[in-house]
């Protein structure tokens, strides 16, 4: 495979394109609403009408507006059909010939779509994720070719530093710096790991990226491997995402067949193999050291850092570990240049961020916006606010490690620093909207129960602390607690936060602390008077 072969595949794919393309969302959300039948019916209707030469029915990745699925879009007229059923699907084909489509439509220029800026999701809903040609037709794998043939590994790292990309897994560590550290370590064997263990409840960005554009992640991993000098990669995916796993398997096989993965990529001396590792349902495995233990086939328990994985990771070799979304950004950065990427977003947070919008909101689905977009734009303009005339009470970001942002702080721009200031975190991108019927103490208990179940048991503050905090929250909800218990809860939160071994324990108190900060009255309403009199010291802060 040389560049010419790649361009030929692209030409051939573009030449074979038919006049009208009907794109059917085939991501997990729409699939469970019957998208497969819809696609079959559409194909049948095309054949019945004798339109095979004019119309292509293409299964694509996530088309973002998950709540209205199954979605079908006509490329030529831009009409977007929602909640298509296998019964009314044939009428969409009839509409191409002047008939009337029975399926409902929505405005493809609505704020939900028009305010998005797609980098990571640029191919999502456009290309067929199960055909590598479809990815090559949108300039796929050209960035890898350029990196391998026109850049030294050092240049590749330098470009990444200039782009200002920060890790999309939640902590926001500068990606270029991480690549540089791994590149500098002197070791013959190095590894690249893609963290696709998206365990945060309420987050499904990584699932959608893997289902919609698996080759972008593979290309990103290959570029990273070249930059740091690794020849083996692992993709650690949750077992709960069977569709993503099967699409990745297809993608790896196709890339290997074309010589875009494996040995001697693009006829260079660079070798890179990727293996999939399937998780087995442990939230703690999202933590990098625990994840590496799991890749090694052991119990996923974290270990203290340093040494960081960049120095000593998988089988004690230097290991680069990045999130799915981080890798998905990589090809676009090398295609369009670091300056282009650095021009998007805010001063400290560059580029875009994908959020999974869910909960009590009209439009649920995936959105990608530039960093620094105010939360209000996301939930009110794009999300359409709370359904049935309700009022938004809070937005939860960062899952069980994050916090609740109350409605009066909706003008906060979304970037790493601003969310941190409010006691929440950017997290991987789950955004759950809560309306006035949601009780915040209940939410705090929900997340604490999650952390309690998911604590791996290695360190005591997390193992015992989460149980005690959960008991206290339960006691408050049962209306059996006093001011004293609330003080005890706050003290415990502080202790667990500062003394736990890994991120799970360190952030487990966040949902409780942030709801205490903004909705303290809801806790106090549930308290009982203390029979021993008021608390003397800290309780009544």
């Amino acid at each position, binding site marked *: 495979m040389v560049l010419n072969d790649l361009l030929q595949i692209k030409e051939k794919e573009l030449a074979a394109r038919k006049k009208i393309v009907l794109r059917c969302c085939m991501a*997990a*959300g729409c*699939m*469970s*609403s019957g998208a497969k039948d819809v696609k079959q019916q559409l194909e049948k209707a095309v054949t019945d009408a004798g339109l095979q030469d004019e119309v292509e029915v293409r299964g694509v990745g996530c088309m973002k507006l*998950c*709540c209205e*699925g199954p979605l079908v879009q006509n490329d030529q007229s831009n009409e977007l059909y929602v909640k298509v059923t296998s019964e009314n699907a044939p009428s969409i084909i009839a509409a191409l010939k002047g008939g009337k489509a029975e399926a409902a439509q929505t405005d493809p220029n609505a704020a939900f779509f028009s305010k998005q800026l797609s980098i990571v999701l640029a191919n999502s809903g456009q290309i067929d994720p199960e055909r590598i040609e479809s990815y090559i037709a949108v300039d796929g794998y050209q960035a890898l070719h350029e990196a391998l043939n026109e850049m030294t590994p050092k240049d590749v790292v330098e470009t990444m530093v200039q782009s200002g990309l920060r890790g999309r897994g939640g902590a926001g560590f500068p990606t270029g710096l991480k690549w540089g550290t791994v590149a500098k370590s002197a070791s013959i064997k190095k590894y690249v790991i893609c963290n696709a263990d*998206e*365990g*945060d*409840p*309420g*987050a*499904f960005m990584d*699932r959608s990226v893997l289902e919609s554009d698996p080759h972008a992640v593979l290309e990103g991993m290959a570029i990273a491997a070249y930059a740091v000098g690794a020849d083996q990669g692992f993709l650690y995916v949750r*077992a*709960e*995402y069977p569709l993503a796993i099967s699409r990745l398997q297809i993608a790896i096989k196709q890339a290997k067949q074309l010589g875009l993965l494996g040995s001697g990529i693009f006829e260079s001396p660079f070798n890179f193999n990727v293996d999939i*590792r*399937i*998780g*087995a*349902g*442990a*939230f703690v495995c999202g933590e990098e050291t625990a994840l590496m233990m*799991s*890749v*090694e*086939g*052991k*119990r*996923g328990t974290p270990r203290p850092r340093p040494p960081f994985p960049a120095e000593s990771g998988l089988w004690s070799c230097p290991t680069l570990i990045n999130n799915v979304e981080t890798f998905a950004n990589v090809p676009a950065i090398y295609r369009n240049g670091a300056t282009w990427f650095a021009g998007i977003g805010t001063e400290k947070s560059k580029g875009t961020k994908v959020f*999974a919008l*869910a*909960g*009590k909101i009209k439009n*649920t*689905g*995936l959105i990608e916006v530039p960093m620094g977009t105010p939360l209000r734009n996301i939930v009110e303009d794009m999300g359409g606010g709370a359904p049935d005339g309700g009022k938004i009470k809070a937005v*939860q970001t960062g*899952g069980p490690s994050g916090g609740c942002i109350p409605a009066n702080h909706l003008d906060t721009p979304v970037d790493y620093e601003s969310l941190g200031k409010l006691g929440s975190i950017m997290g991987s991108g*789950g955004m*759950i909207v*809560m309306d006035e019927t*949601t009780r915040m103490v209940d*939410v705090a208990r*929900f*997340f604490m129960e*999650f952390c309690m179940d*998911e604590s*791996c048991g290695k360190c005591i503050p997390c193992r015992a602390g989460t149980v005690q905090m959960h008991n206290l929250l339960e006691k408050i909800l049962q209306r059996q607690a006093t001011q004293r218990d609330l003080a005890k809860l706050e003290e415990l939160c502080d202790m667990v936060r500062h003394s736990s071994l890994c991120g799970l324990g360190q952030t487990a108190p966040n949902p409780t602390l942030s709801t205490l900060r903004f909705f303290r009255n809801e806790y106090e309403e549930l308290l009982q008077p203390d029979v021993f009199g008021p608390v003397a010291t800290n309780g009544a802060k």
Partner: protein
Amino acid sequence: MGETSGYQSHMSATISPGKQKKIDAVLQHASGDKRFKILEVHMKKHLFKHDALIEILHKAQELFGFLEDDLLLFISHKLKLPPSRVYGVATFYHFFTLKPQGEHTCVVCMGTACYVKGADKVIAAIEQQAKIKPGETTANNKVSLLTARCIGACGIAPAVVYDGTVTPRATPESAVEQIKKWM
């Protein structure tokens, strides 16, 4: 040849007679079941590497439905790993189950989005209908009720997975109806 048999006698010398008897019993059990053969081929595909343990447990659960003691011992013997290590991994991850499941499984997603949209009410309704709690199987062995942390189907919350098929926008009524069909 002589070296190999020497190695084997050394191996058996380190295993106490009681344990050896147990391993023999497991291998005896395995020889009569084709699924063990398939599992061994799968292990061979992974070159009997220790780091493939989780992959192999996935395959074992796929073949047998759950991980019984004999199965874990078989895996530990074939991979040359201590049984404690295999048992430790099998019990650490939520995905693996050591108890047999019912004929049908009903997994209610308890992710945040599903929770705020009423997954707790769905589960309460099922509990009442089937008289079981999450993690349990009905007395007639028909239905197992499980919960998931998040299946990533937040856009169509609350989601329930009936026998591997994700169903969007579940309600307590729709869930009870499905359970009734199965019972």
